């Protein structure tokens, strides 16, 4: 039985041999081969409650830290810290947070504080008030 048809797969130098556009074993990265979307999100169950997403609230800061200021990169610091911004007058709703993340400034909030608030929201972790709301916002809508 002839075995010479068993070609080695690796064949460096031959380009355009990677139709799936995946990062090949030769370190070739196809930038233009992926015509369709390259990102599929597996939605967590909580994201299916789309109606409640826009009405959920994100307190800034979370209740244990009421009154603290927020730095531009979203960290909590003592009130009146220079360079930090005052907390918003009321919790931000999911809809407002979504607008802020998209670069808009919803009514009732100081536009110059938007970046600090957005960065605070991005830093939210499990167990912090508002996290679930933020996580819901991150999930694509049906």
């Amino acid at each position, binding site marked *: 039985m002839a075995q010479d048809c068993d070609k080695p797969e690796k064949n460096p130098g031959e*380009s*355009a041999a*990677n139709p*799936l*556009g*995946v*990062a090949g074993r*030769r*370190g*070739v*990265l*196809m*930038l*233009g*081969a*992926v015509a369709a*979307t*390259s*990102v*599929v*999100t*597996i*939605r*967590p169950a909580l*994201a299916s409650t789309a109606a409640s997403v826009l009405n959920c609230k994100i307190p800034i800061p979370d209740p244990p830290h009421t009154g603290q200021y927020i730095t531009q990169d979203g960290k909590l610091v003592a009130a009146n810290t220079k360079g930090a911004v005052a907390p918003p007058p009321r919790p931000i709703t999911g809809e407002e947070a979504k607008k802020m*993340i998209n*670069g808009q400034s919803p009514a009732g909030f100081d536009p110059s504080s938007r970046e600090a608030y957005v960065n605070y929201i*991005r*830093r*939210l*972790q*499990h167990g912090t008030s508002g996290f679930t709301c*933020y*996580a819901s*916002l*991150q*999930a*694509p809508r049906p």
Partner: protein
Amino acid sequence: MTSPVYAADPPAARVAVALDALVAVYHRPSGATHLLAAPSPELLDALAAGPADAVTLRDRLAALYDLEGDGTAMIDARMEELIVAGLAWRI
């Protein structure tokens, strides 16, 4: 003309598992899981060095890979998808 500058959470915010041609990425801050095809996982990794526009991202990738295809326009398209998925954002 200014090109968009992209940023992503640091790699520690993600858990990535290679599944043959795809990479499953669990994004800790949002609790969401995504399936990514090349070059999206590589783009996310390339942002670990800091925010970058498409040209800078292409240069970072070119340092690691032989790139094939139309560079920056495709990178912008892929980054838009990552933004929609919540894995990256424009600054």
